[in-house]
């Protein structure tokens, strides 16, 4: 057996996951045209700003402005962040290592913390939680550790 083949077999998990990530990054070249096909599993993002506080649901709502047909930047950014949340949920189901190393975790943590600090600047620490609504039942999927303002 050639040394290259031996190397490839030994590293196959790494090679496959790298290739899968590469395909994910260039997926714009391979359109799927599946629109509004995922029904039922609503992902809920909740947060707490202190240990005494009860969980608050993160609100994704936006109102359209008269010019939104031409420029809807903040809404499209929110959609991109919601996609990050969905990809993080998907990553959680396949990734068994330290989730804090995931790019989706870094993006999600960053956007949520920055958004909450913009709205409540005196906040010292933040915790977030993800719940999934399946068949009318809400179940907890992930709870982050407490995130200090200084660690950002």
């Amino acid at each position, binding site marked *: 057996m050639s040394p290259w083949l031996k190397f490839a077999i030994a590293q196959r998990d790494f090679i496959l996951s790298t290739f899968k990530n590469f395909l994910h990054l260039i997926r714009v070249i391979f359109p799927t045209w599946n629109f509004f096909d995922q029904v039922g599993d*609503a992902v809920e993002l909740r947060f707490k700003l202190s240990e005494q506080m009860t969980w608050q649901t993160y609100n994704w709502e936006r109102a359209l402005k008269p010019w939104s047909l*031409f420029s809807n930047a903040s809404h499209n950014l929110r959609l991109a962040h919601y996609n990050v949340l969905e990809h993080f949920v998907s990553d959680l189901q396949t990734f068994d290592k330290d989730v804090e190393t995931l790019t989706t975790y870094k993006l999600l943590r960053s956007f949520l913390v920055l958004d909450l600090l913009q709205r409540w600047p005196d906040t010292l620490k933040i915790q977030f939680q993800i719940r999934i609504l399946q068949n009318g039942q809400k179940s907890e999927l992930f709870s982050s550790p407490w995130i200090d303002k200084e660690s950002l």
Partner: protein
Amino acid sequence: MNQDITLRLTTALIGFSIALSCLEYILLFRNRLFSKVWSYAHLENELIQSLPFPKKLTHFLFNDESFKVLVTLQMVLAVTSMSNAHFLVVLTLLMIQILICIRFRGTFNGGSDFMTVVVLTGLCISLADPTLGRAGLIYISVHVIYSYYKAGLVKIKNTEWIKGDALYWFFANSPIHFTQQIAHFLKDRKFIFQFISVLVIFFEMGSLLLIFFPKGILPYMCVAIVFHFSVYITFGLNRFFWVWLAAWPATFFAVSLLI
């Protein structure tokens, strides 16, 4: 509509659509939720591990400053393409579009990014050589017709769509407050959602009939534009509206060839 006019119109419309997207990025540059969250520092590891590029090239292409340069360049080229359909301009737009999508881990705005790449690819084919003019426009039209058909096929296989429950669910979970209010208001009249769902499925699946009844292209195109506008109103997807509009002249031209 002849081939030359179709090419010019498609290039102008996709240029307009891309210019609007670039304007959104430029407006977001000063938003910390954009610049800090989507900073190269957060994306670096994944890009370096997943792309078959040397580390220096990845850094050069995707760092924060390069992204601003790419968006600005794309804006300039998009505006240029609105008045002049040139192969190199369209090819550069395509390359930049792919780089921007890679930077956003695949896409920033899902289907609208897909269709932007499809239209730019079709235009590249058409503008590469005069003998390929039709081929590129047909390429775009095949994707447009298939995009409606595939979207309809996915829905018709799902009983929740046939019953109207899926549409109600999407309305109730829409990020647009107004759409949520409609869902709440019509909560006890789900037959309305069922009726709209069936209409949407008929419309989407009906795209395939254009191949057999090409004379129906004009009314179908009008319904499609109204459909995309209503998707914008209910879900705020403005980029979808513009990019599908840009894809329609090519579809109109290609289907008209069958008459």
